[in-house]
């Protein structure tokens, strides 16, 4: 069946201060929101700024606010979010807008660094490999958290990030949970120290917006709850000093 008429698309133009600009975009079968934005940039206004790379839901660079919800635009079909033929596309929330649909992602990734979401090897390359059973609780917990594509949709959806800019946020804390569950890490307590401070996991209200909006169905709220538990145990053992 041919799609009806065209789409009425409102696109954010400008930086923090700006306005929505309306475009008419042809309706196509199996059209994604990223297709719509790309059509506007190529056919209507080449000055439109936005980010994308892989177009297949792997790189996590094309997230935007679509009809009020943060979404990955390359895997969001227009037919699912704009049945009435109207689309509003804005930059992701909770991040500073650089121009149009492109946000400054630097603070987002800085929080990953602050949350110590990285691997610190305990052994050298000449040491024997440490076996990690796929069935171990730690490996299972890491598996559940590790497929994050860094799209910042959860960060944009989080109420606590909106309320306090220093909060590490669901993505960085989810990454820290994956790192803490890596039994090969040389200093796992360092992860708990990094996420147990004023800006850390204790601020999560468990609203679960992150889990609700995550395009790859990760549950950062569960990861944060795990960090809270592990942090409490470490605190009671006197390991957080």
């Amino acid at each position, binding site marked *: 069946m041919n799609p009806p008429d065209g789409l009425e698309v409102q696109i954010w133009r400008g930086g923090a201060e700006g306005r929505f600009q309306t475009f008419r975009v042809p309706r196509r079968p199996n059209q994604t929101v990223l297709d719509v934005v790309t059509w506007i940039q190529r056919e209507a206004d080449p000055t439109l700024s936005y980010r994308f790379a892989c177009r297949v839901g792997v790189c996590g660079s094309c997230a935007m606010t679509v009809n009020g919800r943060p979404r990955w635009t390359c895997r969001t079909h227009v037919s699912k979010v704009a049945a009435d033929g109207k689309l509003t596309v804005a930059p992701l929330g909770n991040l500073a807008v650089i121009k149009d649909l492109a946000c400054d992602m630097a603070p987002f990734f800085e929080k990953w660094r602050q949350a110590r979401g990285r691997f610190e090897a305990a052994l050298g390359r000449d040491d024997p490999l440490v076996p990690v059973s796929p069935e171990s609780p730690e490996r299972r917990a890491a598996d559940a958290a590790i497929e994050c594509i860094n799209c910042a949709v959860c960060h944009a959806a989080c109420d606590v990030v909106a309320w306090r800019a220093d909060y590490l946020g669901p993505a960085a804390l989810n990454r820290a949970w994956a790192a803490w569950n890596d039994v090969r890490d040389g200093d796992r307590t360092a992860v708990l120290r990094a996420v147990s401070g004023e800006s850390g996991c204790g*601020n999560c209200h468990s609203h679960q917006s992150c889990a609700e909006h995550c395009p790859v169905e990760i549950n950062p709220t569960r990861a944060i709850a795990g960090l809270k538990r592990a942090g*409490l145990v470490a*605190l009671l053992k006197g390991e957080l000093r």
Partner: protein
Amino acid sequence: MTARLFLVQRATALLLAPLVLVHLAVIVYAVRSGLSAEEILDRTRGSVGWGLFYGGFVVTVATHGAIGLRTILIEWAELRPRIASAAASTGALALLLLGLRAVWAMTMMVAP
């Protein structure tokens, strides 16, 4: 919120659950039995158990409430954590003084 504040808030919440239930039961008992103020004071004056229970209740509420208030001040009033801590501590101190004064009066003061 630091892990230490998180622990204290959770621990006081754990204490408050039974304390609130007992407090509600006491209210229901006093109201449904039709006790007058004088009859209530007759029961509370000199009662070490009542004084300890409500004294503990006041301390727990002041602590738990202040931590929650601190979070609200940071998130909704956008105060810096240090300033929010000072404001919430002041609130906790006021709650503590007023509450303990009331408990003291109900438990220790002699009828005029």
